[in-house]
């Protein structure tokens, strides 16, 4: 099991992911974008109960802080807070 899946597995309950099934049966496709500004890889995580990815994990290729991903998190949280219950079409 790769490091990202291990993290998700260990934090399954804390992250409120129980609805996606058994954390022991996770698998992932690794997307490795090659456009010039791409500094991250993306893991699309599949659970045993779904045939489409249930999670997307972005991991910086290099160690250290990643201001752009922190900014993305902030924007997504901001959008979700605009309406009670958030927006289903926007990543949570």
């Amino acid at each position, binding site marked *: *099991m*790769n*490091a*990202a899946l*291990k993290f998700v597995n260990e934090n399954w309950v804390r992250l409120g992911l129980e609805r996606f099934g058994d954390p022991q049966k996770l*698998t*992932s*496709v*690794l*997307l*490795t*974008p*090659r456009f*010039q500004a*791409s*500094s991250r*890889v993306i*893991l*699309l995580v*599949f659970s045993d109960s779904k*045939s*489409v*990815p249930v999670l997307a994990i972005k*991991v910086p*290729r*290099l160690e250290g802080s990643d201001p752009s991903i922190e900014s993305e998190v902030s924007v997504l949280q901001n959008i979700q807070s605009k309406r009670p219950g958030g927006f289903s079409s926007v990543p949570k």
Partner: protein
Amino acid sequence: VINDIPITQVNIDKGGQEHVGRKENYPFSELIHIARRIDWRFLLPNPALGKVACLGVKDRSHLEALQLFSQSLSILSEVDLDRGDEFGYDIVVISGSDIKGIQKATDMVKPGGCLYMESFGYFNQLLRNLKNDGGRINGLHLYGLRDYSRLLGEQGFTDIQFHWHWPNFRECTKIIPLEDKTVQYAFLYARRSIKARLRSLIGRLLLRLGLLESLVPHFSMIAKREGE
């Protein structure tokens, strides 16, 4: 050093005098570009590469990335392995699908460490041999994923995974586990056309029949050695 392959054991230590081994000498964009060749490290239990050894790796960009992002890199030849020394590497990277090479490489992995192999599907290997060796098919191996799994299992390796690198190792944009669900998704990949569905169906069927690995041009294997 990297260009002189094959060579007998060479250890490139980051703390040594090698100018090219220091990340601070590279601009960020170039560092990112180099790191792309070893995106496969995110498949490991720990993507931070420690003490790494290579066997049969000839791709210069791969070696350059490994040198830059590992604690130390040793480029070994089969002569080194024949000596039967104990090595104890965190990661052993091998290129090719020779069973004997894999058997030797497994001894070099420390308990808790990983073996990473890059190889070619049968038809890709056949084409490469025809192109590079003037039509000879010497050295062509016909091992399936089950053969590798059995061999590594016997050597005390667990968590054995196979991945399809699309479109190839150097320009890879997707690393797909050779499993039913992910193969299905990879063939469909956000497309719902009849053609995509048919491709997906055929892909999964080939996977179940054990034939997909023969058709997948570039695949890798990761296995963890028990003991930690």
